[in-house]
């Protein structure tokens, strides 16, 4: 990968992708920046607003590289926002950033880059691509544990990784900011993007966003024994494992959402120990390559990450229940709190991603 390449860098207007573009340029690659216009609606800036496009363009000008804007708004609506709303309507807890990576950054953009003659697409994710002992590429944790984003890149296959560069995964966030300051980039001090980019806090947040698109219905809180213990304003906004916002505080024994049934309009609540499970079932599992699947089938040791910045969990057994490896169940070494259906679980071999998928509803 050290040869001079033509690289299309996805520039969000943030400091990470700004520095990614600068590093590739300094390595001698022919770099073109592109900002994806994904969301035409209201936002709190996030990755979609015009001011972010302005930031990305200005950084590209400072770096003396070309800058393009691709409007993938239709795809974003179809592949990210629509499913996000539909999942909530079904009582799931989706992760739209993962779907954006899956469908937009590493499918739509990757294909277009190839069609335009680029050798690779680069992003400013805090993750690395390292080889296995046999040389196969793996998404690998970034060196800054607090910023590691390998979890949200778990869907990348080896074929895609051959055309992807993650230049800043070897830097800490502090080092990224120092580089940006050295280059006098206007994004050097820009705060990290937070939350879901297409939902505006000023515009009422998640409940308003979903309430404008689906009918949010009140729900009953019931105990495992079936007794009604309270109500909740919108059953579709409850996430399994949630404690706050259920209106059940104060009796000294915190209770959590154990299950959500949108059709019945009920949220089952219980104590923390009732949230504990022995394992999880995962669907739509994607493996980085066939070797990763074989390695797990053969009983190789793995850890699992169940949220964007969660600690890796010890796994005692992994069962792969179909030929393609798309349905997987994991057994925890120690019982863990349930993972909300719709969230992703990613399997690692040490620092390297083997694959990941979406937690099934029980």
């Amino acid at each position, binding site marked *: 990968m050290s040869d001079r390449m033509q690289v299309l860098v996805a520039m969000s207007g943030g400091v990470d992708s700004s520095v990614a573009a600068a590093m590739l340029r300094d390595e001698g690659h022919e770099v073109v920046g592109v900002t994806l216009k994904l969301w035409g609606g209201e936002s709190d800036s996030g990755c979609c607003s015009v001011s972010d496009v302005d930031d990305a363009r200005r950084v590209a000008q400072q770096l003396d590289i070309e800058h393009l804007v691709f*409007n993938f708004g239709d795809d974003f609506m179809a592949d990210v926002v629509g499913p996000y709303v539909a999942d909530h309507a079904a009582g799931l807890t989706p992760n739209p950033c993962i779907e954006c990576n899956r469908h937009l950054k590493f499918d739509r953009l990757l294909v*277009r880059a*190839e069609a*335009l*003659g680029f050798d690779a697409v680069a992003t400013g994710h805090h993750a690395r691509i390292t080889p296995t002992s046999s040389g196969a590429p793996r998404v690998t944790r970034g060196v800054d544990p607090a910023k590691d984003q390998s979890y949200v890149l778990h869907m990348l296959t080896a074929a895609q990784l051959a055309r992807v560069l993650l230049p800043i995964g070897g830097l800490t966030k502090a080092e990224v900011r120092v580089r940006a300051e050295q280059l006098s980039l206007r994004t050097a001090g820009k705060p990290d993007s937070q939350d879901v980019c297409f939902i505006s806090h000023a515009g009422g947040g998640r409940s308003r966003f979903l309430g404008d698109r689906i009918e949010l219905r009140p729900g009953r809180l019931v105990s495992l024994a079936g007794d009604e213990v309270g109500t909740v304003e919108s059953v579709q906004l409850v996430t399994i494992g949630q404690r706050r916002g259920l209106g059940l505080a104060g009796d000294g024994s915190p209770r959590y959402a154990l299950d959500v049934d949108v059709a019945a309009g009920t949220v089952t609540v219980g104590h923390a120990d009732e949230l504990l499970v022995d394992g999880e079932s995962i669907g739509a599992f994607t493996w980085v390559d066939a070797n990763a699947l074989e390695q797990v089938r053969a009983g190789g040791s793995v850890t699992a990450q169940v949220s964007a910045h969660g600690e890796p969990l010890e796994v005692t057994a992994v069962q792969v229940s179909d030929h393609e490896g798309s349905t997987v169940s994991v057994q925890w070494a120690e019982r863990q709190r349930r993972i909300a259906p719709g969230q992703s679980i990613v399997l690692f071999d040490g620092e390297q991603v083997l694959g990941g998928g979406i937690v099934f509803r029980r």
Partner: protein
Amino acid sequence: MCTATGTLGKVSAYLDHAATGPMRPEAVEAMMPFLTDRFANPSGAHRWARDARRAIDEARDELAELLGADPGDVIYTSGGTEADNLAVFGATRAAAREPGRGQPGIAVCSAFEHHAVLDPVEHLGGRLIGVDHLGRIDLDELADELRAETQRANAGEGPGVRLVSVMTINNEIGTLQPIDRIAKLVRRHAPEALVHTDAVQAFCWTDIAHITRNADLLSISAHKFGGPKGVGALVARPTATVHAVQLGGGQERDRRSGTQNVAGIVAMTTAARLAAAEREANIERLGALRDRLLDGLLATVPDIFETAAVYVDGVSDRTQRAAGIAHVCIAGVESEALLFLLERAEVFASAASSCASGAMEPSHVLAAIGVEPELAKGSLRLSLGWSTTTAEIDHALAAIPGAVAQLRRFNV
């Protein structure tokens, strides 16, 4: 830059003159004194100020003549968008101030106006009139709308139509609109309404004086005909009262406050003079190059469609459109991707209008004339201007088929 030979000695084709074009060298020369020695403010009370004032007054006389208007009709603006906004907001506000009226009146425009008209009309809650698949306003629908609103007004049930705005030439697809017939309909069915036309794309391609004859208000923009950016004019005939949108020092007879762009106005007038003098010759020369380009593309690129084409005996009749605009839709490609490959091949063109972010938005013009959304994604506008050469056209003809083929291999 804007010749057939680019900076690196490579052949370039700049085919985005409908967006903007290079200034005429004579216009650059004409503006220079007013950027240097003759810099004074035309509103001032001293001799240097009077020198600047004289320059914009002389320019106003000449521009008025070229536009078929009286000098007092010409309101200098910062460009086409301001002229359009002043027409729509200014005319409806003036109506609201009329004694015994108190209501602004309805603004009506075609569905494929430039956003500089469309957005003000929509802001005022106005009406949009449909456009047919050949890129012409639906005159029957316009007449129906005007009749209905006039009846409502006469019955005391509505404010009536105050402004009808239809562009002289559509900026994306280049179709010429029948301003004379539109004016007749307005005079007959809504006699209190004013006719505005956004003639921003028209100056090089049609005799504006002929258009002005039928309009009460007309917008132009200097950089579309070899002048500088940031200057334009609204022609407001004596039949049209416009109230200022921008308040301040009361320049332009209280219709547009703000110090006039003296250098820009002088350069605009010089460019207008040249464009008008060369209009007939350019229509012939550039129309032939446009045909060479379009016919060449239609012959070499599979599944390409000339937008809003009018066929007479199997031959595309392009007489009712701007000689300098070629618009096609190419099946199975996306404009964003195509434009990038074209710029790599030193062909500079455009697709639909761009938004502030630089992202390409789906074209409301193509939607209005009924182009399928899938096909509209592959839109390409190639626009010619005074500096366009045969070599540029041939360079584009050589580059485009290969770029299309490359994208089709990836289906993007």
